[in-house]
Each structure stands twice: as C-alpha cells, then as structure tokens.
C-alpha cells in the first residue's frame, strides 16, 4: 500500500488514475502475501460459520422497534480478493418498516446488491464475508440476526420469509425445467405437509395472482417460450409463493422496456397491498424509486450517504451526491440546456481514501471535509445525511 503514496506524489495531476494503475500492477511477492493473509482471515471466518450446535444466544436478539421488519445496523461485507480487501458494504444501517417500501438507490458498484445478498446470506463465500454488523429480522416475538445465523436455520427463512426477485429474468430461470416445476419446488420445500395436488393448485393460483392470462398453459411451458415481462412475472410469482414478510427486488425492471416496466411496477404495488409485506426495492432509476418507495436510502461507494422519506430525499436532497444524481437525470418536468454532470468517477474500492469518499468529486467541499469520513447527521427524525456541511449547527449522531 506504500506504492499508492509514492505514485500519487509523483503524478499529482491525475491522482486516482495512477492509483488504479498501481493496483493493477502488483508484484508477485505482494500478491502472494495478500493471498496468504486473505486465506488466514477467511479460514477463521469459515471455521466459525461451520461450527455445529451454535448457541442460540449468538443469533437471537430483540428488535429495536417491533414495527420494523428488518433493522440493518453497521453492516460490513468485505471481499477478500487477490488485489486487496474490497469493502463493498462498509457500515450500512437502515430499517425496513412493516408494510412499507424502502428504495435503495445508487450507481453500479456502490454496494446495493451486496447489501441485499448479505440479507439473504447469498454472498459468494469464502471470498465474500459479512465481517461486522447485524441484520435483525423480525420473526414475531423475537428477532434473528441474519449476519450470524447458522446456514441450516437460514434455509428455513430464505425463500419462505424473505424472498428475492433478481435483476435478469432472462437468466434467473432454469432453462431445462418447466415453469410449473420451478415454482412447485419453492412451495414443496417450505410446506412439507402439502400434497402434490395442493402444490399445483397453489402454483396456478400464484401465476393467476401475477396477472398471467393462461396459468394452466404457462405451468407447462419452458422459460424460453415466454417474453421478458412474462418471465419477470413468473419470478415474482416464485418470490410470493410462500407469502414472505419481506420481498427484496433487485432491479426488477432494469432489463425491461418502459411499457413493460410500468406493468410490472403496477403489479408490485397491487400485490404489496394484497399480501401486506414489505418491499426492499433496489434500483438505479430515480424515477422508479420516486414512484414506488416510502423511504429512500442513497448509497455511494459502500456507505449510506443519505436516507429519509421519499419526499425528504427528493424535495430536500442534502448530500451533494444526491443533488448531483438528481440533476444529472434528464426529466420531462425540468428543462435544462445542459445536464449537470458529476465530475470524475467512483474511487477505487481497494484503496478508499480516509476522508469523505465523495470529496474529490464534490464542488461544495469545505475545510472540514479533509477530516475522517463524516458520520450521519440527522436533519429530522427520519432524514439523515453523511456530510460535514450539515454538522455545524445540527445535532451530531453516530447513527
């Protein structure tokens, strides 16, 4: 890591580019050292995870607020790669209240998908590890900590109480099985008492629920016989099959056309009121967020930089990045001659700076920005922002 300092001193004019280069060219000796170190850390974590008879006290906790379905606190998910540790998610905290939609927005690589995968315990192990923080999931009278729950307990929750709709409907269905058997599998796995007939009826009922016109026909079809929008409906049916308490939708409409996107969003909204579950919607499209979400979390480079209710974040956007993101999107209700563009690009995830990650791209930075990464400052009960510009006369909290 000494390399980085030497390089940045030598080439002042384009700091981050040269750092990127120094990361790309690691000597073999260094590489072996990093791999060895990574191996040591991941082995220890894996060993801890694979223990038998984990005491319940390690993962059973209480919710802070019983009206929340999920409380994520200080979540840290790191990837131990051969070029160094990538802190994909670094200290993320947010709540998902019961029956509400929480939107997570950010650019690619900001850690929004890794956050959702951590909540499903689906991060690619052993390189990817949840190394810190808690994910409390409300299971009625108590809560479980998904970050520390043993795998066999998680299998009861995954797909049953938390389910996920993935980004690409084209690739997330298995091409060699019929639609019916793929949905049946989910229902059978979590409801062992169901007979074959009941399972099939339930599947057809789910297909009907998501607005598929001939559910009996689709039950017998293979994924390639369906269009993108139809496949996404099947994915939604599969996610809803066990009436989960939380649905994580990871960019559910990104691969679809606008007219189909409108159909799917309309469907999600209807279903949410019908089955009364919470939705965590992950997307980079601010328009989709504005339309669907009650609460918004804005992420940048693995951290939450702003969160609040939808109207707070959209009407009183406070963090310079949120403001920039909104101004850079052309919109029909706001005419501009020239789009605002945020200068520069996201810092290299292996060598994150030790000051605010956005400082180098920020045109509003002040002297305080040179200090350590800013903690979240609460502007109201629900609206928080991680920026030094709001810290002077506001109450400072480490939330």
């Amino acid at each position, binding site marked *: 890591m000494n390399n980085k300092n030497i390089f940045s001193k030598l080439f002042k004019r384009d700091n981050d580019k040269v750092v990127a280069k120094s990361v790309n060219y690691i000597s073999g000796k260094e590489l072996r050292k990093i791999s060895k170190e990574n191996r040591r850390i991941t082995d220890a974590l894996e060993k801890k995870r694979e223990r038998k008879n984990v005491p319940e006290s390690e993962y059973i906790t209480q919710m802070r607020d019983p009206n929340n379905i999920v409380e994520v606190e200080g979540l840290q998910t790191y990837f131990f790669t051969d070029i160094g540790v990538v802190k994909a998610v670094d200290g993320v905290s947010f709540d998902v209240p019961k029956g509400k939609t929480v939107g997570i927005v950010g*650019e690619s690589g900001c850690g929004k998908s890794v956050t959702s995968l951590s909540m499903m315990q689906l991060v690619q192990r052993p390189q990817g590890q949840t190394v810190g923080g808690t994910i409390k999931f409300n299971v009625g009278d108590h809560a479980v900590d998904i970050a520390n729950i043993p795998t066999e307990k998680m299998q009861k929750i995954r797909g049953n109480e938390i389910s996920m709709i993935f980004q690409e409907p084209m690739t997330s269905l298995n091409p060699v099985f019929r639609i019916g058997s793929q949905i049946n599998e989910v229902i059978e796995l979590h409801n062992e008492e169901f007979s074959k007939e009941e399972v099939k009826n339930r599947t057809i009922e789910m297909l009907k629920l998501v607005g598929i016109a001939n559910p009996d026909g689709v039950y017998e079809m293979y994924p390639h016989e369906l269009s993108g929008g139809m496949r996404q409906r099947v994915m939604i049916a599969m996610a809803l099959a066990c009436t989960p308490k939380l649905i994580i939708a990871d960019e559910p409409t990104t691969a679809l*056309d606008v007219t189909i996107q*409108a159909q799917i969003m309309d469907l999600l909204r209807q279903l949410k009121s019908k089955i009364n579950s919470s939705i965590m919607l992950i997307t*980079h499209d601010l328009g989709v967020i504005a339309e669907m979400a009650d609460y918004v979390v804005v992420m940048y480079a693995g951290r939450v930089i702003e969160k609040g209710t939808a109207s707070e974040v959209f009407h009183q956007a406070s963090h310079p990045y949120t403001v920039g*993101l909104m101004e850079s*999107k052309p919109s029909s*209700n706001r005419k501009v001659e020239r789009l605002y563009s945020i200068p520069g690009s996201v810092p290299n995830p292996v060598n994150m700076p030790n000051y605010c990650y956005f400082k180098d791209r920020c045109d509003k930075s002040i002297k305080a920005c040179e200090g350590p990464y800013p903690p979240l400052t609460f502007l109201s009960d629900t609206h928080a922002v991680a920026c030094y510009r709001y810290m002077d006369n506001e109450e400072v909290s480490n939330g």
Partner: protein
Amino acid sequence: MAEALRNKTNHAEHPEGEVLLEVKNLKKYYPISNGMFGKTKGYVKAVDDVSFSIKRGTTMGLVGESGCGKTTIGKTILRLTDKTEGEVKFKGIEIHDLSKKDLRAIRSHIQIIFQDPYSSLSPRLPVGEIIGEAVREKKLVPKEDFDDYISQIMLDCGLQVYHKDRYPHEFSGGQRQRICIARALALNPEFIVCDEPVSALDVSIQAQIINLLKDLQDKYKLTYLFISHDLSVVEHISDTVGVMYLGNLVEYADKNSIFKNPLHPYTKALFSAIPIPDPDVKGDRIILEGSIPSPANPPSGCKFHTRCSYVMDICKEEIPGMIFIEPGHQVACHLYTGEK
C-alpha cells in the same frame, strides 16, 4: 458524384437547414428459412415502410420498445445490412447503389457509436490504435501530424493523451464510450448514428456522455441519429423525434410538439410510462396490456390495434398512412383521418 465526397469536406461551407439524410419508404425484411435447405417460409418485417429526413446540424431521436426495428434502421443507413426496398440518400446519393470503392469513401462521412462499450472495442489493440487505425488507412492526415491529430481527438472527447498506450480493459464504461466516440469522430464525419450510446451507463456518467455529444455537435456541426429507448434522454438531446412500433414509424414530429401534444395512442402510452423522479407527481398512467406482437406474424391493419384502447373497426383492416396534422407533425393513426 462520389468523387466530390472523397475530398475532405469543410463543414463550414454547407448551409444549415439542408437535408443531409433522407430515408424514403425503407423496408428491411429478414427471411425465415425452413429446415436444412432454407426454403423461405415467411419474413420478419424488421423495418416496414419508414420515411424521414434529417437536416444538417440537427439530432433526430428514434424511440420504441426493443424489437421495433430502431437498430435495423441505423444499420441500414450505414449499409451494414442491405435494404429490401426503398431509398437511403445521404446528400442526395443513394448509399445502397454505391460501388465498393465509393462506399468506403462515403463511410468516413457516416459513423456509428454502438450500444455496448464493453464489446465494441477490440481487446487486443491499444486505444491510440483503435482510434487511429481508420485514419491511417484512409490517409486523412499526413504521417508526421498523425500523433498530434489523435491526441487532439482524444482531448476533445475527454480522454488524456497518456491513455493512448493503454488497452480497453483498463477503462471504465464511461471512458470506453468516450473511446468509441473518439473513434467515430477521428474520421471527421458529418453524420453519426448513435445506437443507444448511454443505456449501458450509470446516470452520472450518462450525463457526461450526453454533454460530450452535445459539445461535439456544436463544435463540429455534427448531425446525429440518436437511437434510444430512454425517452427522457431523447427529449433532452433531440430536435425531432420519431416513435417506432413493430417496424413502422407511428409518429414523427418536432420535439416540442410531440412531447407537448402526443397524438398516437402508442406515443401517449409510451410517454406516460416514463417514471418521473418526484414522489408527489402521480401521472395518469396508461398501462398497455400484453406485450409487443411477433414481427414475423404482425397483426393485420394497424399493427398497434391489439393493444390500443381507441381501437375501431377500420384499424383491423386498413393500414393507416402518415397524416400531417400540422407542419412538422405527422402521425399514422385512423383516429385523425377525418381531421384532415
């Protein structure tokens, strides 16, 4: 005729308002062959009778859902695929009638920027070579000026000169798209087909690339055909907009008149489907039922009648022609037949 084109053009000589590209009744059918011996059993009508023209220095936006033939139009204009019928005239010259030699000459005037910056750059060539290969091949600049010329193009596109010796994998998506733009620009073109140049990029990078395209247009008096499915981007960058549905141009108008007053039911539905980034604005959304029909077996009459909420009897039988509603605003819909 083509001889004149081969000489290096000076864009400043040309008056604005001249029609640079004219597409008339363009058709592109792909045959569906049957079995081993390729007996043709039908056609996919990717582009079916499309006409429009683009004036020098303006941008035409082309929008529509996937599979409606936007990209095929772009490719046919460049003669990357052959047309089935119709005319593609660039400065009055029919591109599809040119000889191989003349086509090579005219290609430096028409360039294309592809959708996916990850797969449209050769991974084996350094950036300087990607940008400069065609310039050297066509001997656009003397050998001793070559390096300076490439550096200048790179600076124009927001790249650094020392990027010249790097390979595409060392760049991010936005930077790769800048390389693609530099490659197109290096040949000093007059007309660029931008085939979804920003749809693979993040919002903040999108804004950078859109601004770059606009700056270059002002600087070099470029003309764009901007293909996209993102209506808000098209609204921002275009002067005229064409809306396509299943191989047909259903509405074609000036930007202001089409976004203020969309006439075709499909255009209305498409525009209402744009999510607005404001939680308090709840637009009246027109949700289209079903999905786009197969272009191999399109519905009779107006192709949109299966999903249209204003459908009449005539729509199922007769193909609507383009009707001029007002100067610079045409629509292909039976609803407006009586008004003219």
